[in-house]
């Protein structure tokens, strides 16, 4: 297991390094941030001086090494657009994104898993068209559209929930649902497939033969074995939720990292984009790593196989 973890850690390091390098150079292909940040009447000399004071007139390779050295020291630099440290910006936004992503995940699990179980166990029932439609909708509605529809229905039409922002505790509900729908659908589908797979296995036939009641069988045997694929999905979905937050946070004016990333990309605020991407990459890679380890914990076959 130790060697396995070391190997995965090394891979994770390479992946983060690759992402950072890619983002660094990709951004610099998109043009000059100074020209976009300064007012239109800024003279060429003043633009040059701003470039110099921000260190953007140095050779690209020097800027790159400086950036990497900063990352090593956990110094992400200063925002070009807002003139404050990137880490301050990220820390102020991170709790909102975590809160939104985790509540969306919980929403997706609480709704998606039972839905998947129902769809598997009663898969031949006529009424199964209803959960299927919900899942299909969750999977196919783009969040920027469903988000605005939720606002129109629940905030403008019914007045139940705030239309935007993060001022009151119930502000999270609409973005949570908009963001969680897709994951909900994914969980329901994965759960359904896994359950149906398990249903056809020998141990189920044995359990049925010895007269285990249906509900006990679902709870004790089926669920447990069907959870394995779900755990892998869980880590991937959390990463997806963090990514999907970019759209949802913009629609709902939710002050998280996704919104910060979108605005910073628009403003060519290189250091902020790099900071958010670094955090995103580390999070996604750690989650995958965690999934692998958890996977082993739930299913001894995997642990033995890989650890050997």
């Amino acid at each position, binding site marked *: 297991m130790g060697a396995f973890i070391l190997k995965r850690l090394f891979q994770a390091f390479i992946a983060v390094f690759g992402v950072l390098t890619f983002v660094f150079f990709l951004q610099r292909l998109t043009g000059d941030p100074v020209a976009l940040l300064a007012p239109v*009447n800024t003279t060429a000399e003043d633009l040059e001086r701003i470039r110099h004071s921000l260190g953007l007139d140095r050779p690209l390779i020097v800027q790159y090494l400086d950036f990497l050295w900063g990352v090593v020291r956990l110094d992400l630099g200063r925002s070009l657009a807002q003139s404050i440290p990137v880490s301050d910006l990220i820390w102020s936004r991170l709790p909102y994104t975590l809160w939104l992503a985790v509540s969306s995940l919980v929403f997706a699990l609480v709704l998606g898993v039972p839905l998947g179980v129902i769809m598997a166990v009663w898969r031949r029932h006529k009424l199964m068209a209803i959960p299927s439609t919900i899942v299909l909708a969750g999977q196919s509605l783009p969040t920027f559209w469903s988000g*605005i529809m939720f606002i129109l229905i629940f905030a403008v039409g019914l007045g139940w929930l705030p239309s935007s922002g993060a001022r009151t505790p119930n502000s999270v509900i609409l973005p949570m649902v908009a963001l969680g729908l897709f994951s909900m659908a994914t969980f329901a589908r994965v759960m359904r497939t896994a359950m149906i797979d398990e249903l056809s296995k020998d141990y189920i036939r044995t359990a049925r033969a010895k007269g285990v009641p249906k509900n006990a069988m679902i709870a004790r045997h089926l669920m447990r074995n069907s959870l394995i694929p779900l755990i892998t999905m869980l880590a991937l979905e959390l990463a997806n939720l963090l990514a999907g937050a970019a759209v949802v946070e913009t629609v709902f004016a939710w002050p*998280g990292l996704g919104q910060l990333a979108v605005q910073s990309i628009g403003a060519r605020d290189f250091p902020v984009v790099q900071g958010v991407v670094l955090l995103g990459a580390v999070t996604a890679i750690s989650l995958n790593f965690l999934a692998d380890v958890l996977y082993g914990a739930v299913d001894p076959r995997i642990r033995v196989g890989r650890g050997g």
Partner: protein
Amino acid sequence: MIANPVIPRGRWLRAALLSSVIAFAGLSGHAALAKETIVIDLVDEPQSLDPHLHANNSALYTYGNMFDNLLTRDNAGKIIPNIATKWSQLSDTEIEFTIRDDVTFHDGSPLTAEDVAFSIQRIIDPAYGSDWISTFAAIAGAEATGPNTVKVTTKTVYPLTLGMMTKLPVVPKAVVEKVGDEAFNLSPVGSGPYKFVAWNRGVSVDMAAYDGYWGEKPEFPKAEFRIVPDAATRVADLQTGAADLIVTLTPDLAVQIQAEPGLKVETVATERMAYLKLNLEAKPFDDIRVREAIASAIDREGLVQGLLLGIGGVESEQLIAPSSFGSDPNPPAFPAYDPDHARELVKEVSPDGPIPMTLVNRPPYSQSVAEAVQQMLIDVGFDATLEVKEGGTWYQQVTGDPAQHPDGYFINMSCSCGDADGLFTLVFGKGANFAKATGATDETEALLVKGRTTLDEGERMEAYEAMADWVAETLPIIPMYQVSQIYAMNEKLSFTPTPNETMFINRMAWSE
């Protein structure tokens, strides 16, 4: 486009929802009490609350209510006293301002001539790195000459000093020196009608009315500027009463709001001009007949009425907005919309077929306008192609070597300075970033220099009229329309938008 799904939200949806849940309908109304807090939805985060540092619109709206400028403009654009009550020209390059003696900062300390001089020195200091540095480039320095007098020195004879001082926020010297630039930006202290309360990153900037304000006090004890990036969400905020005033709307959203009871839309034609810039160093666009053909092919009325729904802009054949000094009261004749004439001219220049033409646009300039102009040009015999570029790459192309320029590009340009010098210099001035391949000559440069180094208003006016004539004869740009800023608000709020896009809460009123 994200906004579109909102439009077909027919009345049926609302009717169905409301009828099914009548019990909850009452919850979405507005509070009928006196207005405690005014909530304004902005598009993005203010780049800084230190008013000398950054200059995006959100920042201007926000710190504009916490700081006083040395001078200000009334809603019609006229320069009026503010912190300075009067001023006199000591010499060609020196102006003395007399400062009010009853102004205090939010920490209770009095605002003095020292603070004004310090503010000017700070904004022009290259080491400080203000976004405003080019705006204040003509200033050589400032010093307090008495407890209530400040002498401002310009590098040359400069007629725009007063206009510039409407953009000079006064900061407290003692506070800035004590806490440092960084801390001052995060917790600003001004002398304006509102004092800073909190900056919730990504959410809002909160303010409270300053009891010791010297001027007209605002009606609302509290103000909140919120950050709501999505236009459809800003509209929803307004509809639910979560916001009282929202900025930057598309014309189609504005039309939708106009139909809603309890809400209203206010627009103002700003100094921002939308025009097509031609490349006078590319063949055959160096031929005046070709440029005349382009000018005759563009149907301004169609663009403004059809695409901007008569809300997003006001037709203009001039670069300088009528609200600015130097706008020509008797503008020169500009080629009228006449596609047949355009076709003839194209045939004359290129009898063998269409003239190839490359056009470039960038967001956020209207893409539908760019596409419509492309089609108008195709209709009269240009083989026009339109490319959309991202801001940074667009900027590099159109400010770089003219050999790499497109034949034409779309741009919305403003100086928000209320003076013809602003746009004429930005668009045609020697060495200006955007003034490439314009056909500008030594004579036009001499006019611009005369305009910005002569104190006599009559002579300045003549220079700008001559510039306007030159533009109409040479056609280096094809002006299309003045861009309108669209605001939507609760019907109870009265707010007069201004051409220079200011938003002073103490000029607003609320009536139940």
